[in-house]
């Protein structure tokens, strides 16, 4: 599905990595490793199409993702360091906007159900800014429950989550992979994930 060939990324005037090649197929998980500053975030953003790599190709089903554009976005869900939430809107409204922009209609029920599953039943109507760190992250994670697309990119998704939430997220990832989804993630925390096929990519020590 996803093929990376000879990828090279440069930030500022430093080359982060070069000649990076790997591929991923449906129903698999890729865990990206590397010390602080190795370029994990940069790589994930490049794959999501947010960063223009210096050279090399990123292909989805054999097509360059730059050519695919919105087609590729339809298959992708990217959760980065930022929450990607409007702090003035409630969790409910945030999810609703996401769903609409992604082009499918969700019922009130579905959204509420997703928020309940991430343990925010009581905070549905609070504006996101009034939530704690971990609760904000949970709202962002609720997107993974609403008509999720096939390919998930998760940049340190476990940050700020308490133990219960960490277990919940691992389970969500495992189910997704088992159902033929693809997950690419990076985390410094030690988390046990048992998904069909786990690929490990290491970015060089710097």
């Amino acid at each position, binding site marked *: 599905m996803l093929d990376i060939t000879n990828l090279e990324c440069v930030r500022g005037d430093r080359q982060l990595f070069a000649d990076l090649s790997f591929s991923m197929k449906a129903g698999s998980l890729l865990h990206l490793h590397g010390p602080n500053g190795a370029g994990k975030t940069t790589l994930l*953003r490049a794959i*999501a*199409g*947010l*960063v*223009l790599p210096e050279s090399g190709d990123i292909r989805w089903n054999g097509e360059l993702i730059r050519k695919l554009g*919105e*087609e590729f*976005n*339809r298959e*992708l869900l*990217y959760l*980065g*360091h*930022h*929450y*990607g*939430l*409007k*702090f*003035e*809107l409630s969790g409910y*409204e945030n999810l609703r*906007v*996401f769903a*609409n*922009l*992604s*082009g499918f209609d969700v019922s009130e029920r579905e959204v509420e159900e997703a928020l309940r599953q991430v343990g925010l039943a009581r905070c549905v109507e609070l*504006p996101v800014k009034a939530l704690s760190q971990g609760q904000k992250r949970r709202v962002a994670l609720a997107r993974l429950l609403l008509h999720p697309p096939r390919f998930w990119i998760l940049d340190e998704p476990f940050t700020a989550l308490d133990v219960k939430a960490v277990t919940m997220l691992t389970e969500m990832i495992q189910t997704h992979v088992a159902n033929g989804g693809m997950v690419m993630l990076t985390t410094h925390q030690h988390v046990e994930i048992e998904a069909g096929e786990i690929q490990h990519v290491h970015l060089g020590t710097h």
Partner: protein
Amino acid sequence: MLAALWCIVQRDLTLAMRHRSDVLTTVFFFVIVVSLFPLGVGPDTELLRSMAAGVVWVAALLASMLSLTRLFADDYVDGTLEQLLLVPQPLALMVLGKIVAHWLISGLPLVLMSPLLGLQFGLSGDALWMLMVTLLLGTPVLSLIGAIGAALTLGLRGGGVLVSLLVLPLYIPVLIFGAGAVEASVVGMGADGHLSLMGAILVLALLLAPWASAAALRISVE
């Protein structure tokens, strides 16, 4: 497609309504700037009438520009802009939605307020009418051009001032034709030429600005 456009417009309007003071403050800024001039210049009525069009238009320019920095900045900081780039919709469309919302919030109120301010400067009925029409044609252009500047300076320190440096020169033609049309009608001349030029500028901006802003956003978000 249109559903997505509408969704964005609605989202931004909801956000603005959460902070109703936002909408009010742009208008108040406009009103205060216009009212500062009689204070700075003195109470000579003839002098005031002859500068009315210029002052109101400059104030509209500044008010629209001031609210520009907010156009993408909030979305950039909290990461929702990143998510908008990843939505399966043409980015230019999303940008257009944001621009429309921006105009509804910060342009339209100015248009509606302008006759009142014009009265303050002693403009006649015809001139007041012309002032409103030019603002109606001109303020969307301000939002459209401004979006390019706002997208280019996203996340830069001192973006607020930089955006004015980039955008004000491009605003100047709008200012000249807008104020020119009102002045023409103050002295009783026709202003059709000015108006059709402003219409042309509006169409041009409508065709180009969303694309240019979308391209600028892609650059800035990286």
